[in-house]
């Protein structure tokens, strides 16, 4: 406990660094997954290939990816950009399937009705299909958020600063409270982000409250 209090400024800095790696990755995974999922649903024969294919990306071991990516991207191993790209790839692996399923689950009666009253295809996508896929998209996003927060820590092995650095330092120097703080803060951060996402969902999608059809 005392160790934690003494090192509070460092823990705060590392938490911030952790967020700066995780948040851009979660956001880009979400934004990139949407058009891929949309296209996969449009070109039916390719759907399973695309969705399962991106899903397999999750099987890439994370540490080698962190090391190989810089060679492809031409960045340094410790570059945060490298880490964010790697995390985005893992996020995509989870999000493309969620997004494809979410967009697919929109009731066909509602699609038909919105076409019948005069929505153009683009307008229908953004004003009807996307919002109605919202709850399922949010469920996918929550999984990506938790998974990303936990994966960020791996990059500490490369020397990129994050809450994971509390583990690596703790192991190297035999400071148990440092390891404990790392675990605790990572879990808290994942929880906090999850709660924020749920809250945002309730505000943005009031119609989805209390179950529904």
């Amino acid at each position, binding site marked *: 406990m005392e160790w934690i209090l003494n090192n509070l400024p460092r823990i705060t800095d590392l938490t911030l660094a952790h967020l700066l790696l995780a948040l851009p990755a979660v956001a880009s995974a979400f934004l990139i997954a949407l058009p891929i999922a949309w296209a996969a649903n449009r070109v039916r024969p390719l759907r399973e290939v695309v969705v399962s294919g991106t899903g397999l990306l999750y099987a890439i071991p994370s540490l080698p990816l962190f090391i190989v990516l810089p060679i492809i991207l031409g960045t340094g191993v410790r570059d945060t950009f490298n880490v964010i790209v790697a995390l985005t790839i893992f996020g995509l692996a989870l999000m493309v399937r969620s997004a494809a399923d979410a967009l697919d689950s929109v*009731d066909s*009666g*509602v699609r*038909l*009705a*919105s*076409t*019948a*009253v*005069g*929505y*153009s295809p683009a*307008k229908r996508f953004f004003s*009807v299909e996307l*919002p*109605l896929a*919202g709850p399922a998209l949010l469920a996918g996003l929550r999984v990506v958020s938790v998974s990303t927060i936990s994966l960020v820590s791996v990059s500490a092995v490369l020397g990129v600063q994050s809450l994971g650095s509390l583990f690596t330092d703790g192991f190297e120097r035999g400071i148990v409270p440092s390891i404990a703080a790392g675990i605790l803060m990572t879990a808290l951060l994942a929880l906090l982000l999850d709660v924020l996402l749920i809250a945002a969902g309730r505000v943005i*999608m009031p*119609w*989805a409250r209390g179950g*529904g*059809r």
Partner: protein
Amino acid sequence: MAIDFQNVTKTYPDGTVAVDDFSLHVPSHTCTVLLGSSGCGKSTLIRMVNRMVDPSSGSILIDDADVATTEPVALRRRIGYVMQDSGLLPHRRVIDNIATVPRLNGESKADAHRRAHELMDIVGLDSALARRYPKQLSGGQQQRVGVARGLAADPNILLMDEPFGAVDPLVRVELQRELQRIQTDLRKTIIFVTHDIDEALTLGDQIVVLKKGGEVAQIGTPENIVEAPANDFVAQFLGLDSARRSLSAAPREGGGWLVSDGRGRPLGVVNAAPDQRSETD
């Protein structure tokens, strides 16, 4: 606005011939009912009017203009469409659902909402429901919202595909009455699809009885069709040949008459015999 189907055929990509060489004149300001059993091509026909489905051959004219020459999205925005299970947008409040088409047409939110409130009144919806989401309404209320949405842009043509198919019989009758009342005022050109004979007889100025493949078995007024079914198919479909519509009356103990159908199933009571009534009328 009159609608003309001219030798319309629709073959779906899988080879199903849903409609085969169908022709029909739908006069302005009247309600034409397409009556037929499941799969006979009613929805296919009605959807060809607003280009949800394009015919494989033949054409559909609205006031002598071929719909094929009209841009589909613009066409749909000037034709009201009401379907079974209302097809309301679950994420929009009642008021916004009704205002959908005016909003798509670029009307301001305030104007569209004002109009939507008027329509709620016209279709008999309490204005307290305006802020609810569709799933917070009963099936009958949802159908009313569907009708209000169909009327919102003040279209000349209203397409109704089994709009009251999913509500219980009492509510259905109430909705039919409401529609008749609205139609007396608004005099839209309506194409109304149903497989319910009573509904067709209640609402139709003109009834088109359809066989499979959109083949016309008979076109006529409700009276024409009941009095002079053109063929066995029509008679059978309406139950005219069966015992269902041949009624008989027997005197009741307490006075009046008990009316039964040909199978002896009691239908109701009349207080005076028909011949006595016509004398007092």
